[in-house]
């Protein structure tokens, strides 16, 4: 084979490998990486299914006191309702590994969803933690907002006061709300990232 041909093959392989890794991990301002997960009713969903819509990702663990703060107060459900009524797709994702806190059977998940009167579009199960690691989800809750072009426009905390105290909710700025409102108004999202607060995501390794 000619040297040129060999070099061409090598060059193309490097590019192919490079692009395979690019976009593997989520970054604000870039295309949110696609994923496919099964929900608590056995239905499969891919992020790409929702292209053309705003999508909110909510990392969840029903037994974490920070998640309890937002659910017992009704704050999360209210936010979910408000957003989904405006055609936003809201996906709760649980990356708790088997045997770890927050990992439940689908029956238990659906029971909790019902008891909590959750208003998300679907509760996706990410037991292997693959999607969590893709989005660098560290805490529950950890929120992400994706615009209709598939771009990640917000990643971070649900609101501005880091605590387990329900009383702090009314005094805090809700970043999911401010992000969506800014995006709908065509304004820039600020802050586009904040440090998330909560319990650590219970990955398997």
């Amino acid at each position, binding site marked *: 084979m000619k040297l040129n041909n060999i070099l061409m093959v090598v060059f193309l392989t490097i590019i192919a490998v490079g692009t395979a890794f690019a976009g593997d991990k989520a970054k604000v301002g870039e295309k949110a990486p696609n994923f496919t997960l099964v929900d608590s009713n056995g239905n499969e969903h891919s992020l790409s299914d929702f292209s053309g819509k705003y999508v909110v990702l909510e990392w969840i663990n029903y037994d974490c*006191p920070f998640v309890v703060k937002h659910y017992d107060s009704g704050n999360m459900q209210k936010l979910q309702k408000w957003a989904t009524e405006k055609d936003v797709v809201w996906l709760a994702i649980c990356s708790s590994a088997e045997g770890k*806190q927050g990992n439940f059977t689908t029956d238990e998940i659906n029971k909790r969803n019902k008891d909590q009167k959750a208003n998300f579009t679907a509760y996706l199960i990410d037991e292997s933690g693959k999607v969590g690691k893709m989005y660098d989800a*560290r805490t529950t809750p950890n929120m992400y907002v994706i615009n209709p072009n598939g771009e990640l426009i917000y990643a971070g905390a649900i609101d501005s006061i880091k605590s387990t105290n329900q009383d702090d909710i009314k005094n805090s700025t809700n970043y999911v709300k401010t992000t969506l409102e800014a995006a709908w108004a065509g304004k820039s999202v600020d802050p586009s990232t904040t440090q998330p607060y909560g319990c650590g995501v219970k*990955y398997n390794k």
Partner: protein
Amino acid sequence: MLKKLIFLLLSATLLYAAETGSDLVEVEVIPAYAEISDKTKIVPVALKFKIEDGWHIYWRNPGDSGLPTEINWEEGKFTTTDIQWPIPEKIPFTGLANYGFEDEVVLFTAIRLERNLIDNLEVNANISWLVCKEACLPGDQDISFELPMGREISNPEYNKLQQKYKAEMPFSTDIIRATGKITEDELVITIDDENLPKDVQFFPYEPGFIVNGPEQEVEKLGNKTIIKIEMDTYRYENPKSLKGLLISNEGIDLSKQVEKYKAIVINFPIN
């Protein structure tokens, strides 16, 4: 009737067995004085935490999750100083990491008395924390103490505690000079000291800037030590400077000093 009794007993035991975050940590307050005089300006205070085996509470920078341990003072005839934190441990979890304390930790702080204090000093505070093992539980405890006005009398218990914890406190010094440079998502700290041990790591005071999980790369370059750290891609912006601890289990040998230090405070500008 018997069935009901058994049921009640069982429920009571179950309720009793459910531990809260407040059950897993116990706080004791130890002021530096047993009695103060009208000339006393500052009263150092130690807060001794006893933490349930296997659980931990957090440093001022809790890392990738958790909440810092907090003191909420009730208003009184005094102001308070910042907490002096002992050297924390890095607690890794599934690729991420926290900074915190296990077993026992003593936080040091101080009460600054207002000038015309003539009565006994009454101090009340609520200490709050997040205590975690696998799960996390919020907890808190009210503490209070009263110091009679009279002659200034030291509390030997405080002095003993301060001595015991001397080695656990980071050392503040101006001797170490360092600068930082951020390129894309990498921070390179260049420290003007070629003798830093190979296990040295940097723990920032503020969360949200560096990636906490991985071990930081340490290299020697001429007469300098370089630490390479990944920056958090979700950081709001690049910091103009970072303050924190250089930590080494081997111990940092500052030239001209006799002892080795487990941690020293550094504050460096970033280009």
